[in-house]
C-alpha cells in the first residue's frame, strides 16, 4: 500500500516553518561557518598553525570531518546571510520530522493518527537538536537510514542500494555516520540469516556502506572521531553529559523508552527482528544527552506498527471496548499529496524568506570584542571560543567547541586556571596569558577581583580581565 505524503509533509513543513522564527545562536555555529568558508575556498583540514584560530593547539593538523556540513552552512550564509542559515535549519528540521512521520506512517498507512502519536516523542525531543550545525544534518541522515533499512528489510532492494550513497554523504556531513554503518551491518547480518534468498543484496549493502564511509578526505581516519566520542564522552560539556530523566528532554526520552518497553511486553505479535535496530540505538541513546533523540526516532515506526496491538491488549485487560476500525482514514489521492507539497512549499518559502535574520548574541561577550588584544594570550570561556573565532579573528582563542584539538594539556590547563586549582597563577605565567574573558561567577573572575587585577570591561554576562 502506498504511504501518503500529506501528513508527513504537512507536519514537517509546519515545524520547519516554526523554526524560521527561532533565534540563531548555537555557540558552535560560528566556528563551523569559519571552517565551512575554508572548505568552500578549497582548503579542507587546514593545520591550526596556518589557520591561527587558536594559539594553544598549533600542532593540531586540522579537522576534515564534517567538512561538507560546514560547507553547506557556509554556502547558506554566503547566499543569504543569517537568513540562509535559518533556511537551512528549517529545511533540515522539515526533512527530519517529515521522514520520522513518514517512516511511522509507512507501518500503518491508513492510521495517520497512530503514526503521529508514535512519532510525537521523536518530534518533541528533536526540538533540542534544532541547532544550526552539521549534527542536525546527521540526524536527518539517521532518520533516512531508518526508513531505508526498514524498507530494505521488508523487500525493497532499491532501498538497500541507496544506503551506501546515503552513508557517502553522511560520512562527509557529520561524524554520526558511524552508527549508520554499524546498524546497516547488523541489519545485513540479520537479513542474510532470515532471508537467504536476498543474502547478496545485504552483503552488497553492508560492504558498500563500509567502503562509502571511507570516501572522505580523512579516509579510514574518519572513524577516529566517532569512536573517540563514544568511548570518551567529554562529560563536562552539557550535551555530552549523562541523560537525566528528571529534566524535560529526559522525560520526553522516557516516554519513548517506556512506551517501547510497554509495547514489547503487551503486543501479541512477536517482533524479535526489531531488536536489531532498537537495541544498539537504545544503548547509544543512553550514553549522552545529545544521543537521546536517536531512540525516539528509531522507535517511532515500531510503536506505530505494534502500539495499536498493545493498546488493544491493555483495553481488553481493563475491559474497555475499542470500536473496530477506530482512527482509520481513507488514503488521499496522489493529487492531494502533490497539492499539499506545493502549498507547503510556498508556505515554507514565505516563512524562510521572512525568518530570523540575525543571531541572538545575548549570551555572548559582544561588548568585550573591541577590547581584546590582538595576537596570542587570551584565555576565554570555552563556550565563547567559536563566537570569538568569528567576531575577533585577530585574537586567537585558548579553546573552543571543536574540543579535539584541545583535549589533554590545553583543557587541563584551562580547568586549572578557570577553576582556580593549585598552580593556576604559575600556569598563567607559563602559558603567557595576558587577558581573561570569562563569566563573572567563574572562580578565576572572583579571585582576580579579590586580587585587584584590572578589569577592562564587565557585564552580567562576562568579565574581561587584564593579567597584571
Amino acid at each position: 500500500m502506498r504511504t501518503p505524503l500529506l501528513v508527513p509533509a504537512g507536519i514537517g513543513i509546519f515545524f520547519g516553518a516554526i523554526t524560521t522564527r527561532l533565534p540563531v545562536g548555537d555557540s558552535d555555529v560560528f566556528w563551523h561557518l569559519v571552517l565551512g568558508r575554508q572548505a568552500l575556498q578549497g582548503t579542507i583540514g587546514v593545520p591550526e598553525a596556518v589557520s591561527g584560530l587558536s594559539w594553544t593547539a598549533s600542532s593540531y593538523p586540522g579537522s576534515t570531518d564534517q567538512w561538507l556540513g560546514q560547507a553547506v552552512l557556509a554556502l547558506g550564509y554566503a547566499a543569504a546571510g543569517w537568513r540562509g542559515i535559518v533556511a537551512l535549519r528549517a529545511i533540515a528540521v522539515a526533512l527530519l520530522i517529515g521522514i520520522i512521520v513518514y517512516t511511522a506512517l509507512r507501518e500503518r498507512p491508513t492510521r495517520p493518527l497512530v503514526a503521529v502519536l508514535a512519532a510525537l516523542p521523536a518530534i518533541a525531543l528533536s526540538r533540542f537538536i534544532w541547532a544550526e550545525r552539521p549534527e542536525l544534518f546527521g540526524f536527518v541522515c539517521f532518520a533516512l537510514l531508518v526508513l531505508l533499512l526498514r524498507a530494505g528489510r521488508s523487500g525493497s532492494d532499491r532501498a538497500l542500494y541507496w544506503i551506501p550513497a546515503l552513508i557517502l554523504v553522511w560520512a562527509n556531513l557529520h561524524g554520526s555516520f558511524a552508527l549508520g554503518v554499524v546498524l546497516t551491518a547488523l541489519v545485513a547480518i540479520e537479513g542474510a540469516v532470515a532471508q537467504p534468498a536476498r543474502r547478496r543484496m545485504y552483503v552488497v549493502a553492508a560492504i558498500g556502506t563500509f567502503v562509502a564511509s571511507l570516501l572522505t578526505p580523512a579516509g579510514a581516519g574518519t572513524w577516529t572521531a566517532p569512536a573517540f566520542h563514544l568511548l570518551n564522552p567529554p562529560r563536562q560539556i552539557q550535551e555530552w553529559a549523562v541523560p537525566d530523566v528528571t529534566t524535560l528532554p529526559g522525560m520526553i526520552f522516557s516516554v519513548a523508552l517506556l512506551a517501547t518497553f510497554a509495547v514489547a511486553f503487551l503486543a501479541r505479535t512477536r517482533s524479535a527482528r526489531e531488536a536489531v535496530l532498537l537495541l544498539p540505538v537504545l544503548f547509544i541513546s543512553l550514553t549522552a544527552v545529545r544521543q537521546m533523540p536517536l531512540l525516539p526516532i528509531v522507535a517511532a515506526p515500531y510503536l506505530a506498527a505494534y502500539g495499536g496491538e498493545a493498546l488493544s491488549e491493555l483495553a481488553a485487560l481493563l475491559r474497555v471496548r475499542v470500536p473496530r476500525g477506530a482512527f482509520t482514514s481513507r488514503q488521499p489521492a496522489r493529487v492531494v499529496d502533490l497539492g499539499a507539497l506545493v502549498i507547503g512549499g510556498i508556505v515554507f518559502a514565505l516563512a524562510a524568506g521572512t525568518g530570523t535574520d540575525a543571531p541572538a548574541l545575548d549570551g555572548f561577550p559582544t561588548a568585550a570584542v573591541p577590547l581584546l588584544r590582538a595576537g596570542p594570550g587570551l584565555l576565554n570561556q570555552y563556550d565563547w571560543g567559536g563566537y570569538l573565532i568569528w567576531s575577533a579573528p585577530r585574537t586567537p582563542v585558548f579553546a573552543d567547541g571543536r574540543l579535539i584539538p584541545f583535549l589533554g594539556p590545553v583543557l587541563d590547563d584551562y580547568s586549572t586556571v578557570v577553576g582556580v586549582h593549585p598552580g593556576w597563577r604559575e600556569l598563567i605565567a607559563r602559558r603567557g596569558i595576558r587577558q581573561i574573558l570569562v563569566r563573572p561567577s567563574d572562580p578565576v573572575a572572583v579571585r582576580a577581583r579579590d586580587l585587584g587585577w584590572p578589569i577592562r570591561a564587565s557585564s552580567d554576562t562576562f568579565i574581561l580581565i587584564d593579567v597584571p
Partner: protein
Amino acid sequence: MKSSTLLFPLCTAAGAFALAATVPLGDPDMYWHLASGQWMLDHHEILRFDIFSSTVSGQPYSVGEWLGEVLFALVFNAGGWAGLTLFRALLAAVAGFALARLSRRGGAPIIAALLVVVWAVAFSKTRWIDRPAMFTFVLFPVVLDLLYSARAGSRRALLAIPPLILLWTNLHGGYVVGLALVLAFTVEAAARRQSAFVPLALTLVASVGLSFVDPETFGVAGAAAHALAPPRFISEEAPPDVLEPSGVLFAGFVLATIGLALFRGGELLDALLLIPLLWLALSAQRHLAFFVVAATPFIAAGGARLYVRLRPHGVPMRPLPGVLSVGIAVAFAALALASAIGRPGAPDEHAYPAGAIAALRTGTGTLLNEYDWGGYLIYRVPERKVFVDGRLFPFYPAVLLDYRDAVELRPDWKGVLSKYDVREALLMPAKPLAVALRESGWTVRAEGSNFVLLAKP
C-alpha cells in the same frame, strides 16, 4: 521445600556472603549513622534534632531510618568493625538467597538462572553499602519473592508482607518501593485474577497503614519528591552512566529485558513492575538495583526460551547427581567460612583526612569541611561540630547553597565565611577555596596528599 530447590539459593547466599565479607567498610555515611544509633542507644530516645553540626544545631530533622541506625550501632557494639562487616555480608547473603529464588520464578532452568544471578550479584556488589539503605537492598528481593509466591497460590506469603513493610519503614526510607511492588501485583490481580485481588488489596491496605507506624518517617510524598528532584551533587544520586562498569552491567539488563520482550512478549505484571522501576533506575544510580533484581526472573526465563529456540536439539540440563550437589554446597560453605575468617578488621579510611584528626582536636571555632567527610568527622572527632555531612536533609537547601558558594569560590564566598564565622577549613587541596585561602594567608595546620587543614590567621 525440597532440599534440591534450596541448594541453588543457599549456594548463592554463601557466594554473596563470601564476596561481601571481603569488601572493607568505608562508606562516608556509615559513620554518622553509627553515631546517631549510638546516641539513641545511650539516651533511649529517637534522635529528632541535630547534635552534630554547627550550622543547623538543634534544628529538628528526620532521615526516616532510626531502627536501621540502632541496629547498626548494636552490631558494632557487639562485634566492632569486624562484626559490621559480617553483618553486611549476612544481609548480602539474604539478598542473594531471595535473588536466586526469584531467578527461577519464570520457570528458568538452573543454568539460565545461575548466569543471570551471577550477573546480578556482580552488579549488586557495587551497591553493598554499610548503612541502613542495605536493608532496602535485602527487603526488596525478599518482598518481591513473597509476592511471586502469593501469585503462585501461597496466601501465607502475603501474611508476611505487612509486618515486613512495618519493619522496612522503620529501617530505611526505601520502603516506598516495597509498597509499589505490592501495588503492582494488586493491579495485575485486579486486571487478570479476580480471586487473588481481594487478599492482595487487603495486604496493600495493611502495608500502607503500617507504613505510617514510624515515629520519624518523612513519608511517601517525601520519597516521591526525592526521586523527582534528586540532589545531583551526591554521586549516588547522579544519573547512571552506561559507560562505567556498573552502568555497563545495568545496560546489559535493560537491553536483555527489551530484547527478550521483543522475542517472547511479556505479561501485564512485567510491564507494571519493570517500566516504573526502569524510570526509577535511570533517575539515579542508587536505584539501579531495583530494576536489576526485578528483571532477573524475566531475563532468566526468557534467556532459557531463547536458547531452546536457537538450539532446539541442544543438550538439555539434567539435575545434578546428589554427591555433586553436596560437594558444591560444602565448597560454597567453605568459601563463606574462609571469607568470614579473613574479613577486613577495620574500615578502609584512605580517602578520609585521617592525618588531620590530631590537629582538629586542638583547633577551635567553626569548621568548614568537605561534604563527603562530614560523617567521618562526626565519628572520629566528635568534639568538633561539622559544617555539613551526608544527612543532607537538615542542610537542604540554605546551608548547602552557602557551602557550594564558599567551596567553589562563587562571588560571595567571603560573605559565607564571615556569616558562619568560619575559623578552620578542612578541604581537598585542589578545591578553589583551599587555593584562595592559602593565597589569603590562612595557615596550614595539617596537610596530606588528599586534604589540607587551614586556619584563619
